[in-house]
């Protein structure tokens, strides 16, 4: 292996350079460099639309061990592909310490390397991801590039968070998912800001019909009937999702249950009149403890760089979950109406399934 390995570099905006070797596409890429501390689930993470525009660093040092499930099985409309969270790799680049070229798993169809190559995504391995993580933790997440050749001069990368990324990653026209072999119990209008497949799976498994619509879709001008609105996770700064915020604000008047996850939670906060802010290095891991107001603690999977500022919540709203580690907001709810949202990912994938009951709660509310 040592004969064929090609050197590539990870350069951060602050000038730091990490030298490693290429896997996946041998090429260049740019994006916001973020880290995730999860120990399993790289196919799920790489296809999570919330990572759109980002270069993902895995702090777990052994990546690729169990290969990748068959991604050539292109799913049809209304079908979701198992093992992935969307229909393509969403990250702009992958950074790992030890890449395992040889893999072993009954469900694997190819190596991570081949998948990245076919998806034309560059990867870099052989670098000290712990040291890199410490840099991102202390200096904050920052733009960077993976490059085959170091060029002189300052790295100029446009901050992806200045765009409405949600609009870029969502479906462009509505898609409908129905439970197999049974009549839907409820209909959910799912505002897609970059939704993960497993959210849709969770609803459909519980007997809901899901109408997945683009992020700018206006529920008040809908040709579909629905019993509740769901605002999905997604990438970037929530404040860029201006029309989604405006639409949701108006939708409160429908007085039907509304549920949000991650970016959806921030959008709900903004629609309610609260403010959001950027976290220094975000929460991207599978071990975040969140305490519900009743005192119970749940281990959750998370992937977000922004959060709702609890202090700015209007008086008819309240904090629902709080992070046991750093005290940041992990969920909000309306005091009297069935509007609620969580910052973490109850659909997990990757990560623990402890908060799957939130989907039941939403179904029951409708």
């Amino acid at each position: 292996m040592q004969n064929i390995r090609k050197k590539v570099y990870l350069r951060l905006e602050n000038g730091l350079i990490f030298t490693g070797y290429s896997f996946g596409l041998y090429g260049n890429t740019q994006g916001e460099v973020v880290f995730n501390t999860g120990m399993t689930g790289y196919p799920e993470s790489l296809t999570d639309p919330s990572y759109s525009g980002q270069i993902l660093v895995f702090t777990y040092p052994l990546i690729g061990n169990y290969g990748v499930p068959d991604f050539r099985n292109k799913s049809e409309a209304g079908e979701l592909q198992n093992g992935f969270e969307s229909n393509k790799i969403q990250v702009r680049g992958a950074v790992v310490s030890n890449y395992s070229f040889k893999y072993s798993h009954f469900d694997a169809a190819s190596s991570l390397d081949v998948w990245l190559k076919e998806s034309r995504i560059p990867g870099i391995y052989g670098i000290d991801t712990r040291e890199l993580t410490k840099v991102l933790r202390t200096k904050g997440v920052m733009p960077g590039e993976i490059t085959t050749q170091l060029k002189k001069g300052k790295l100029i990368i446009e901050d992806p968070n200045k765009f409405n990324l949600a609009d870029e990653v969502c479906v462009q026209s509505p898609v409908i998912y129905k439970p197999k072999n049974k009549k839907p119990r409820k209909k959910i209008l799912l505002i897609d800001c970059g939704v993960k497949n497993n959210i849709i799976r969770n609803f459909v498994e519980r007997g809901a019909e899901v109408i997945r619509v683009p992020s700018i879709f206006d529920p008040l001008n809908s040709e579909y009937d629905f019993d509740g609105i769901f605002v999905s996770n997604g990438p970037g700064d929530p404040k860029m999702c201006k029309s989604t915020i405006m639409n949701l604000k108006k939708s409160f008047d429908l007085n039907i249950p509304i549920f949000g996850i991650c970016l959806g939670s921030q959008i709900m906060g903004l629609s309610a009149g609260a403010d959001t802010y950027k976290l220094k290095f975000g929460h991207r891991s599978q071990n975040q403890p969140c305490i519900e107001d009743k005192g119970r603690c749940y281990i959750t999977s998370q992937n977000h760089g922004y959060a709702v500022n609890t202090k700015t919540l209007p008086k008819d709203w309240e904090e629902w979950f709080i992070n046991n580690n750093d005290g940041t907001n992990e969920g909000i709810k309306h005091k009297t109406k069935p509007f609620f949202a969580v910052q973490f990912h109850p659909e997990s994938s990757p990560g623990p399934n402890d908060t799957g009951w939130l989907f039941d709660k939403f179904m029951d509310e409708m």
Partner: protein
Amino acid sequence: MNLTNKILLLGSGALKIGEAGEFDYSGSQAIKALKEEGKYVVLINPNIATVQTDKNLADKVYLLPVNPYFVERVIKKERPDSILLGFGGQTALNCGLELHKRGILKKYNVKVLGTQVDSINKTEDRELFVNELDKIDIKTPKSKAVTSISDGIKAAKEIGFPVIIRAGFSLGGLGSGFSTNEKELLNALKEAFSYSPQVLVEEDLRGWKEIEYEVVRDCIDNCITVCNMENFDPLGVHTGESIVIAPSQTLSNTEYHMLRDISIKAIRHFKIVGECNIQFALNPASLDYRVIEVNARLSRSSALASKVTGYPLAYIAAKLALGYKLTELKNSITKKTYSCFEPALDYVALKIPRWDLAKFPGVDEEIGSRMKSVGEVMAIGRSFPEVLQKAIRMLQVGKYGLVLNKSKTETIKEDIVTPTPRRLFAISRAFREGYSVEEVHEMSKIDKWFLYQIQMIDGFRKARVNRNNINSEFLREAKQLGYSDKQISLLANTSEDYIRKIRKRYKINPCFKQIDTLAAEYPAETNYLYSTYHGSASDVKRTEKIDKKKVMILGSGAYKIGSSVEFDWCCVTTAKKLRELGYKVIMVNYNPETVSTDYDICDKLYFEELSLERVLDIYEYEQPLGIILSMGGQIPNNLAMKLHKAGVRILGSSPLSIDKCEDRNKFSSILDKLNIIQPEWEELSSIEKAKAFAKKIKFPVLLRPSYVLSGTAMKVCYDDQSLENYLKENVQISKEHKVVISKFEEGAKEIELDGVAQDGNLRIYAITEHIENAGVHSGDATLVIPPQKLYFETVHQIKKITKAILRELNITGPFNIQFLAKNNEVKVIEFNLRASRSFPFVSKATGYNFIEYAVKSMLGFNIEGDYKTLDLDHICVKAPQFSFSRLSGADPILGVEMSSTGEVACFGESMEEAFLKSLLSTGFRLPQKNILLTLGDLEDKIEFLESARMLDEMGFNIYATTNTHKLLCNNNINGHLIYKISEKKSPNILNYLENRKFDLVINSQSTKDLISEKDGFVIRRKAIDYNIPLINNIKIAVLFVRSLYNYKIDELEIKSMDEYE
């Protein structure tokens, strides 16, 4: 918090196979957690060499057997309001269940804290367990007990082929087999029923992955999994015998979280409060799984998981037992976050068990469903090859790593198909000889990912290098694959020292990273460190100038026979004393079952190899005042000269003095110079010379070969023939491999002196006496302090000799000398210039902490004083713990090679009382009725005569074979005649043993009659296999009978350690 004030904590007793030092760790953590809450803690644990039995931890320490009888008496005396059952292994758990069953806890109103007895029962009772999990749709292995062939076929059809057939109640797997169809099944059932009336039909899960989760739950149902672990060896090999990696490596997110969900569901259902372990079988080709078992207590795996993650499971479990919630407890590593989270690792940790099977000739070497290993090592790093090669070196079995080793005893097919301690090396060898990953996978069922990794390590050794073309890229890759400097030097055909030099020139040094539980997501104050070559920067700063207030301690490595928890105690005590004296402590050790690797006992913990290479790396990085290597037993001691040559400052005695003691020739000439007598010896290179020398000094002789082919290293020979046989068959004797032959003294007493010296002067010492005569390894001997049968003159001589040696070698620090005494003549047989196995024993028995004095002496504090160690008001007896029941085929004898796995010690007003308590503490059951007496030689029979009379008087039935029986009759002692096994007549010993008709077997080996010795082996082995108490030494037999005669069990006093002061 809780109304609990006085808590009884049960320990696990002596170290034995299956229950090692991990319970000292969990017990010590529990005591710490309870004391923080201001609770009064009463501990029962006869293991005197543990940290938990130290003076200032628990409020009261009882060195007494952990069994219902003694625990009840302690409860009656202390009246605790609650009890903890989960911190002392299976011993404590079983004892607790029994106390509950007998209504003792209820009677004295003692509340069980943490997981309740009802829940424990549901996890321990197989049938209840399966039923409970059935209720919540969790799958367990399908199994059915049948009593007829037709039922067996029915059961197999229900379960589905393939199935495993096991004969019930049979030893050693007789009558077991696999069937893939009805025809095979019919044959298998026929065979199985020939061994046993009951046969188990079970589904065949061979080749499934074995996965474990450590789960924590609090009283309001918060539930987390702290760590998951994957076994390298698929199902079939006990998890204690498996190579284990954390976190799992071959599980996808779906699999990981499916098993995690089931873990949490099961543990909530069982209403565990605290910590528990759950084991799974996972189908490698689907998402099918089975729950194998749940351990509702701290375990070996939980200790491992604590060390893997830095999450203090035992400490947290103790707090949860008091009623705390997980969200209220701080994460003790980050000190910023809370304990209700699941650690994210950014490294991997690998455990390899440490076997010591070579110590037991005849033992079955197959690794399977029963534990045989005596310890374990754990390596931390950032790639599989890195941790695998590190861990192999840590085993200290003479390997440089996975590859490039000297001795190659592994055979490819046999050792891969049937697991033995050689399996790993056999796999590596298979790749070297051209086997494919598929082929090795077919033979072993080990997941291909692991095999690819091994293949990668092995493939690298093909690199063509020599000392002139080594470049930095090659070196870095070698280091990342876990190659030591030594291995690289073998590849490049140069010296280890040269590799180190050029490696430094290329600036290829290990990085030292922190274990922080959160993969660097939050800043952590942690001092828990490991080294890796997969890094560009260290988490801790390099020390630039020598720090005179910093001392480095080298730990003792894996537990093995001869090096056990006592050395961990020495290291921990050293660390505590140093910190008390204002020094910062750097600890280096890699044994996950220890207190010394608890990151809060030192200022920095390097969970690292105790190799010259790594110790130098750390030493150079930390720049301490010096290294203490006299506390961790032989492993650090062996590094003395090498470190000295590398310019390292060793605290205490000079490495040159250590060398003089370790080198037989040098030490012998020192003794000659000082006119100190030693048994005659010579180092010889041929059988003829050996025979001639043996003739000169007269048989018996003791042989110490330098190269052993099979069997144990030391052997006593009684005649020409056995000497010749042994030298021909078991060892190599040549100019390169000389054999040391010395006079074996019969009938001599063995005496030990443990002490501390300073600048060549004796400062404090303790003399202990062996109860057995010389010839029994000091680690297997029963020791008594103060000595009971020594002449004043002998003590005088011992002191004189000791002082002379100390002065000659200018010793500072701990040491141990072993003497032989016969007819007022004292000979020196061994001198150890380090703390010995008996330091905790003499420290606790005399009330003077010898290690503390040793630390002070090494750092130049004056320790002169008047210490009263000979004239004590009480007696303390240390007894060995054997684990023969786990080692099928091994001969349960006492000899020159050590075979015990642990020890206990108890106090008493007399030697008999202390002895009886210690013996009971090793799990010995007192006889009720029938005793078998098989004494080898006439001298033994005569020596035992008075004891036999006492047994008769006490109403025991004594069974003896013809000669002994005759002797008993002639002396008017009642006895029953029983025939030898070889006589094949009834009533026969074998028959009686197999029907468990004896309550006690007293056996002594014959040195002369080899035919009856063959019977002797069978008798001893059967006694162990049928769980019949065995006494195998004449001196112990005599002392036992006297003790039994003098004391009824209720006359044994219940007194805590401090009541004896």
